[in-house]
């Protein structure tokens, strides 16, 4: 079972998440510049580009915020601020190695509940500014939620089923031998898809889509924008990092200490997600809903059934 981390970990956690999110965003910026210029460029150029997200944050913070007419400012503010809060709260049950800030007995439910806050956050941020494009972004996310959430919940339930516990520490312990990803590949795949959908990122970025000028985020500016888009990166990092204790053996691994394995595996998942994003266009939710309900949901149920039978015969 996972140990409890010391009290100061509560303060370290957001900073750590932020650092990982900045590195990931930097990596993404380097790849984006590579596509723009036809080549990745020298290490020095790449390093300069990697600092772009950080500079963008500073630029937004000093910029004069703009406001739309008849906007509901508190609503949009709450929406923007809720996103990073949800991400950090979800990360509370995330073990680094074998220690998490709080290894709740029902950690998996907690994680799922916190990420569901993103539904409210994006909807409020889209509704608040009284603007069509952001409103479209907002309800696109609700449609997206309908598409990804059910297979997603089934996938994380499958991991809990395999460990016979909702405690994240127990799920990690159950993978001391074989990773869950090996004998629950469908659940793992579905989890990775929904990890991107949860952060409305990758092929699921329609709520903040380019075609609606940034959608839910289109009217946010200044600190609100930083909170919202930063929160989205945090959510992506947390969702990717959670796949490690759920399916990839958490801190288990030879030679290296547990925390190093967690970091390495998280980095691998994040790199994969960032790379995969560049390979596919944005999925339109009206088409993805079909796939989610007709293919992914039955697949997730079948996977849960297989795991349940294995666990009963153990």
């Amino acid at each position: 079972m996972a140990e409890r981390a010391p009290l100061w970990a509560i303060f370290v956690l957001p900073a750590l998440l932020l650092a990982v999110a900045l590195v990931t965003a930097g990596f993404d910026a380097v790849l984006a510049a590579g596509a723009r210029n036809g080549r990745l460029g020298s290490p020095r150029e790449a390093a300069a580009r990697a600092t772009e997200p950080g500079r963008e944050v500073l630029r937004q913070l000093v910029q004069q915020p703009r406001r739309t007419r008849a906007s509901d400012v508190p609503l949009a503010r709450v929406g923007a601020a809720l996103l990073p809060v949800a991400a950090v709260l979800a990360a509370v049950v995330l073990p680094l190695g074998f220690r998490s800030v709080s290894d709740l007995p029902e950690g998996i439910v907690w994680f799922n509940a916190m990420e569901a806050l993103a539904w409210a956050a994006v909807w409020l941020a889209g509704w608040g500014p009284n603007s069509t494009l952001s409103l479209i972004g907002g309800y696109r996310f609700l449609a997206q939620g309908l598409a990804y959430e059910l297979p997603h919940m089934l996938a994380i339930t499958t991991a809990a089923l395999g460990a016979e516990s909702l405690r994240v520490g127990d799920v990690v312990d159950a993978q001391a031998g074989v990773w869950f990803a090996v004998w629950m590949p469908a659940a793992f795949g579905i989890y990775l898809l929904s990890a991107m959908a949860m952060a409305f990122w990758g092929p699921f970025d329609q709520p903040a889509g380019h075609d609606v000028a940034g959608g839910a985020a289109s009217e946010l500016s200044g600190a609100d924008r930083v909170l919202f888009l930063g929160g989205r990166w945090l959510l992506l990092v947390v969702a990717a990092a959670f796949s490690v204790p759920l399916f990839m053996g958490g801190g288990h691994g030879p030679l290296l200490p547990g925390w190093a394995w967690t970091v390495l595996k998280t980095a691998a998942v994040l790199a994969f997600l960032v790379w995969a994003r560049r390979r596919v266009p944005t999925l339109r939710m009206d088409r993805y809903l079909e796939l989610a309900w007709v293919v992914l949901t039955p697949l997730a149920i079948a996977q849960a059934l297989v795991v349940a039978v294995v666990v009963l015969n153990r």
Partner: protein
Amino acid sequence: MADRAEDRDGLRLDRLHVPLGPALLDWPAGLVLRLSLQGDVVQQADVEATAPTSPYPPFWNEPWLQARVGERVSRGDAARRLCAAHLDSLGRFFAVTGWADLAARARHVRDRALAGASTAELSGLVRPLARRAARSRTLRRLTAGLGSLPAGHAHHLGVTGPALAADGDAHSRMLVWLDAVGRSAAACDDSDVLDGAEAVGPRGRLDGPVPPSQAMLNALPGLLEGTEFACARIIVASLDPDLDELARLPVPGVAHG
């Protein structure tokens, strides 16, 4: 901003009146679409095109227009312009479908084409791009069936060029562009003189009764009605009308007044 009207299923729903354009990301510059939306389904679309007044001929049609008035233009130059024009359209199309990576690549190749890159370099850049776009099953799934414009109907509307040749939906129009980009990239070094009689620009015949983009604009409302918002954007990008073509050019030799 909102009122209520019957929707397709006979329910009375809120209706939003939303203008799209004239300035929107990856949108044909100057085009305004006045949409009536219910949810995000387009119930009605009215096209308003603001023709710019410009002393210059439309950039993308330049070589063919020059050849028509008897100037010496090489086929290679025309091919280069055609290649860049379609890459420009493709960049917008990929961006609207949410494929930022491929859009950035298409724009990079476009800039190389306009900067005078050699045939070999261009073909080398175009090939992987075209392969990725043509083979993407996700892209096919997302764009197939949108804005279907059969050749017969297109001909009736006066649409020429890639949209007529495609004889189908947004995806088939993209394939026609990709094909034309590949062929024109290979022909950039042709030094033969362009025949002034065959005035076919990137968007269609330049000697018809109306500019090719005007024909596309006429086709737009019919294609957009009943589509979802995201689909509407893709349909517009798959036609990519160029409003420069509607510019009122000062006719040389004629006094204004």
